[in-house]
């Protein structure tokens, strides 16, 4: 599925606030034509990461590699890790956005960021194979869609569902503390390692908080033979 089929539906309205879109005609959008998905007010409120950010995890306001990444380096078993790139910070606006997107289940809202994700992919990860982080089966039943897969679909590059996640006890990650997250073992498996062996793999997820999920999947993918691993996430909290 590509984004044009996704967007054949939700057209003409701001994907975030539902306002009818009034395209303002500027030279910019006249010559570089792409359909707007957000209204001007919402575009103005986007917490885009600009300026200095950690080169390894996109954490905002770091010039050097941040402390989190240094501690990952010391512990790292994923030696062929490249970096994480994120598009946005996590602020109140983004929190409200995620709540509607993920927890209310408004999947198409992700299409507003497809252009940004594609651009980041081309700039940083050309040639990588996208692999969305899976959901546990029960959560998938409840939510009906995998938010990471919805993001991966927007890259317009064939993605591979290489990872699998078993059913686990324990609640949502968004309800856990940092320590709990780092200690949780998600138990990802790679059922068919031949698809990714020898290739550069790009892990796709919605949010990078402690990095625990992404790093664990990177480790599993490298063990299964990936040449290198990196991640592209929408939000860096």
């Amino acid at each position, binding site marked *: *599925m590509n984004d044009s089929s*996704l967007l054949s*539906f*939700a*057209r003409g*309205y701001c994907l975030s606030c539902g306002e009818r879109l009034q395209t303002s005609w500027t030279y910019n959008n006249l010559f570089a034509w792409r359909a707007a998905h957000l209204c001007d007010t919402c575009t103005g409120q986007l917490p885009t990461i600009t300026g200095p950010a950690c080169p390894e995890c996109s954490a905002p306001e770091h010039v050097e590699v941040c402390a989190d990444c240094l501690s990952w380096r010391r512990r790292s078993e994923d030696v062929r890790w490249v970096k994480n790139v994120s598009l946005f910070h996590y602020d109140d606006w983004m929190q409200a956005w995620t709540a509607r997107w993920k927890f209310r*289940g408004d*999947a198409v809202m992700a299409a507003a960021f497809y252009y940004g994700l594609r651009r980041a992919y081309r700039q940083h990860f050309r040639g990588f194979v996208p692999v969305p982080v899976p959901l546990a089966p029960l959560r998938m039943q409840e*939510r009906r*869609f995998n938010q990471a897969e919805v993001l991966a679909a927007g890259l317009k590059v064939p993605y591979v569902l290489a990872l699998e996640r078993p059913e686990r006890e324990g609640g949502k990650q968004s309800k856990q503390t940092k320590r709990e997250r780092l200690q949780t073992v998600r138990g990802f498996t790679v059922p068919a390692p031949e698809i990714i062996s020898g290739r550069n793999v790009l892990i796709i997820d919605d949010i990078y908080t402690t990095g625990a999920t992404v790093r664990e999947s990177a480790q599993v993918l490298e063990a299964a033979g990936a040449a290198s691993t990196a991640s592209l996430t929408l939000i860096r909290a």
Partner: protein
Amino acid sequence: MNMLSTWFTGSSQSASPFPSFSSDAEIPAIPLPDYTKMQVHCSGRALLAQEMPHDQKIIKAYVQAGMLQEVPAITKQGTLWRCLRCSNKNPGLFGVHACACGRERCVYCRECLEMGRVSACTPLYYWTGPKASGVFTDPLVWSGRLSSGQERASRAAAAAGLRKEELYIWAVCGAGKTEMMFQAVAEALARGERVLWTTPRTDVVRELYPRLAEVFPGVPAAAWYAASPEARPEARLVLATAHQARRFKGAFDVVIIDEVDAFPYVFDPGLQQAVREACSPHAAVIYLSATPGGKEQQRMKSGALSYVRVPRRFHGHPLPVPECRWAGNWRLQLSRGRLPPALLQWCRSRDTAYPLFVFVPSVAAVRPAVEVLRTEGFRCDGVHAEDEKREEKITAFREEQIDILVTTTILERGVTVPKADVAVLGADDDIFTESALVQIAGRAGRNPERPEGDVVFFHYGRTKAMQQTVRHIQTMNREEAAPDE
């Protein structure tokens, strides 16, 4: 036949997608678990499996017994998808994604997402068994007296409720519309019918609910508005915003549509359809407003819509007639962070003991106006639709902790602050239509202790709407002076 469809012009209704409700009291042949609770919970509603009090297994048993009907929530009609819960047919308000049900493209409705997501693979359940019932004899506990105009409207409403007819009550702002409805509601409840009181505005629902709960103490009542706490499903008297009325299907026998000409109800055929579907096909419909739209006025004149006109306020005093004052280029002044001198001078000269509403045409104008008025030494605050502290500010204004409340048109109707004066800054703006201005002018002089009250329109060129407003109010006052027909 269907009285509602005559009023909701525009969309000729196709065959109803909803199952018909059998009114005969059939007793289920097979014993079903927890029957009364399910009946009360599901009666007259369209529910998702997760909104049910029981799990899938029990729901299945009910479906097999013919008590519940399982309907796919989103169906395709021709080339268009249609959401059965909110009647959304706008392709811009659907979404699609790869789904856990196995479909590559599973469609879901974005219009009613806040009420829990419905998609093509989730069924809705309708109660098709006997409806839950409840009879309340003499539910009304109210000792107030109606004025003669109110009395007339009250009797007409009660009669319309009994005969299941359509009635428009055209009563001036401050005529006491709520009290006129008490009799009709009480009689309907005594007949064992369910009553829906719906309005487009959340603020109106919140203001009405405690008043109704007080005069109908023994009746299970519920208020539904966006972000309202989960209300009791068994309620016989339901207050809901038009959006929330979508939760109900075929449930009500008497519907009161308050402020029927307000945004967004008049502009959204989907909402009108939702209210139509919430009540049974032969329900009585009573519309309340001070400012009927042109189409309705025409239908009243031609006799197609019966109506009662109440030109007199409940305290019997005339409506304050607005005064128009030249304010110069107020847009320019606002953009420079100033207010027109005419407005400031008027604010200073008036008796500050009385609270003052200042209506402005846009959200952007609220902040500069508040800032200027604060530097002038007034206790002043501003509200608009996205303001999270709206409730608190309005309460503070009522309690006279704030002298001047700057507001957008959200407070134009349904809000009562006794003894208030009203100013409109930029009354020539397009947003201030005749009905908006009449409603705004109606905020003043609502208290019998101070029935006058000033209404001033500050403008940069008189518009037709302003002139019509003045004429409208003068006509109403003249009618009032003449004895009742």
